[in-house]
């Protein structure tokens, strides 16, 4: 879609197309098979039968970043791994989403003080959409995060012009009036 992105006026038909695209995107979020530490086990529990993430169309983890929309970073990222996490993120195609799962990834967690080797939150490396704190978060808490991500994805405007600045907001407000 490229050049048309966020370039059309924010009117009813464009919005309808946008919401259709958003619905499609949010109903087929494909996460990446990516486990680092403790949280990965709870992430596996989310894929398993008891919680069954497939109910939201996100249950088939992809083994390669090129096919996936969502990277759940489950576990401590250290200096050696951070380079790889960044590379994996760079390999994903747009639109891509990041969930930071667990305290270590949200902001350092237990390793914040004495961890000479750990990155204090993966948002120092890659932009994060949803933070799910907990050590580790319960599977329900991760699903809560994924549901919130679905909302966020559904809200995204693809073609309609986004209100970027305050002046733009004012203009939209006046137009609505």
């Amino acid at each position, binding site marked *: 879609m490229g050049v048309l992105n966020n370039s059309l006026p924010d009117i009813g038909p464009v919005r309808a197309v946008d919401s259709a695209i958003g619905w499609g995107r949010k109903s087929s979020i494909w996460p990446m098979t990516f486990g680092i530490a403790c949280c990965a086990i709870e992430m596996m529990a989310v894929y398993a039968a008891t919680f069954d993430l497939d109910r939201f169309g996100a249950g088939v983890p992809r083994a390669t970043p090129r096919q996936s929309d969502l990277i759940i970073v489950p576990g401590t990222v250290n200096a050696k791994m951070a380079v790889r996490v960044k590379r994996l993120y760079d390999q994903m195609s747009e639109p891509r989403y990041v969930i930071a799962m667990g305290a270590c990834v949200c902001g350092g967690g237990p390793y914040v*003080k004495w961890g000479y080797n750990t990155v204090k939150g993966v948002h120092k490396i890659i932009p994060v959409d949803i933070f799910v704190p907990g050590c580790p978060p319960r599977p329900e808490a991760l699903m809560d995060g994924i549901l919130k991500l679905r909302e966020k994805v559904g809200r995204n405007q693809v073609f309609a012009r986004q209100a970027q600045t305050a002046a733009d907001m004012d203009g939209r407000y006046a137009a609505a009036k």
Partner: protein
Amino acid sequence: MGAIRDYFGNISSALTTAAKGMRITWRYFKHEPPITIQYPRERVEPPPSYRGLHILQQDKCIDCHLCAKACPVDCIEIEAIHHGRTLEWKQFSIDYKKCIFCEFCIPVCPVDCIHMTSEYELATEDPDGMVEDLLTWTGLRPEDQRAVEAAVNKKKGVAAPATIESAKGAPEPGSAEDKAAKIAAIKARLKKGSA
């Protein structure tokens, strides 16, 4: 001759192993109830001992900083001004970016004012949203309130009449009202989370 026997032997063993597995699958399909929890429509309550988000009984707290000292990750920030015996509270916050839910802050409290609830959903888009000021934290649901009361009573050695009394007002578990109330609570929470 042997090769042919191997060939057909392989086919038959492949069929039998597949049939064995499919028999189990069929039995589950036919006879066993589904085990999937339909989150967020239904929610399995963690046990009362669950170590979830914290709650502070502010009127009891004496600002002794013992919980902050006991914390292995230094996630508790406390600030209060003492006016004689009364306290003017500035801050009692827990940084869930660090908290590991180890429960070491609970047993050290000399006045039993900090507790852990069975609340655990804290997913947010904002990294600063994970620092909860317990003075204003209102994420507690009625059942959590009851669990806290029960925990306090248990520690005091009081039998649990308070729990039963407070539970009287609640609709019967499993009834239509109960379900409606739960769904309403979940909706309210989701709305709060997305706002």
